[in-house]
């Protein structure tokens, strides 16, 4: 059994399990599935700066912080105890394109030549970690949700604004992949 769990899980298993988070959170405590709100609660808890957007009783939303803390712990458990240590089996065409761009390390979940701690204080770190992270945080809050809140929870609840947001997430991702990344990789040489 453990050997099966240690293999990467197929999309249909993962998809069903992630989809079940929606009723799980609703039935446990009437909570809408959403993750990016946790970032707002962290701002409200640590640096509200009298801004109206962060002036609310974040303690009422503390469940969301427990939820994301759990995700972090789950990431640790899966990586340390439930992994077979093999590289991600990505499509050959994607691998070839990434090698052509200049990605070197394909041994883990992320390329360590971009996301390793050694890259933090380099131009790579500035672009991939700082700029990239800023756009994720700013963009999701501006859009009022992320992949979980809009693309899964919102679509599952048949919300048109969530469909619009999801389409825009995808358009942004395609532009980033096909236009920005080649420029970025040229910049960092």
């Amino acid at each position, binding site marked *: 059994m453990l050997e099966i769990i240690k293999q990467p899980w197929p999309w249909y298993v993962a998809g069903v399990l992630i989809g079940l988070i929606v009723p799980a959170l609703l039935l446990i405590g009437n909570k809408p599935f959403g*993750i990016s709100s946790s970032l707002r609660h962290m701002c409200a808890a640590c640096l509200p700066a009298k801004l109206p957007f962060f002036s609310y009783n974040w303690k009422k939303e503390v469940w969301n912080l427990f939820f994301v803390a759990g995700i972090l712990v*789950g*990431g640790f458990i899966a990586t340390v105890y439930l992994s077979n240590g093999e590289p991600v089996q990505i499509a050959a065409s994607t691998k070839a394109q990434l090698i052509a761009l200049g990605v070197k390390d394909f041994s883990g979940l992320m390329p360590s030549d971009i996301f*390793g701690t050694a890259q933090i204080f380099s131009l790579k770190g500035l672009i991939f970690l700082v700029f990239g992270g800023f756009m994720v945080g*700013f963009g999701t809050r501006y859009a009022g949700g992320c992949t979980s809140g809009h693309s899964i929870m919102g679509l599952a*609840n048949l919300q048109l604004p969530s469909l619009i947001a999801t389409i825009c997430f995808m358009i942004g991702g395609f532009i980033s992949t096909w236009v920005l990344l080649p420029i970025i990789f040229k910049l960092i040489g």
Partner: protein
Amino acid sequence: MDIKDKYDAEFDSSNDNNQPISFFANIKYLLVGIFFGIVFVKAEIVSWFRIQEMFRLSAFHMYGVIGTAVIVGMISIYLIKKFNVKTLSGEKVVLQPKSFHKGQIYGGLIFGLGWAITGACPGPLFAQIGGGFLAVIITLLSAIAGTWVYGKFMEKLPH
């Protein structure tokens, strides 16, 4: 209704406010999170490579995961509504509709740009850190900063 009110409306859907805010009351969300984090890593959707594959249209994996999750979520909500399933504490399940504003377009595009660069939406950021990619702590801090900057300038942004 201005944008701040819209956001506050989001929170009204979080019921169970009659429950005490205690560490033990929230442990169940920690457990759901742990389960979710494990699925994230085991399905490799926290992998930068998988996100690249998705945006290069060279594999079905991510589309399969998200598509299946949406369908399972949709059926679940349908069944909850149809059979009026109550929460553990006996409350009626409340689903808050989302109202459209231009932020879903502009913000959505900006998040999309960041998604392909970082290989992560907010959820996977936490799983990546747990998985040992400590540099992602910088990404997370920057995402929090991005959220804060939005809160600071939201009145000036088109919505």
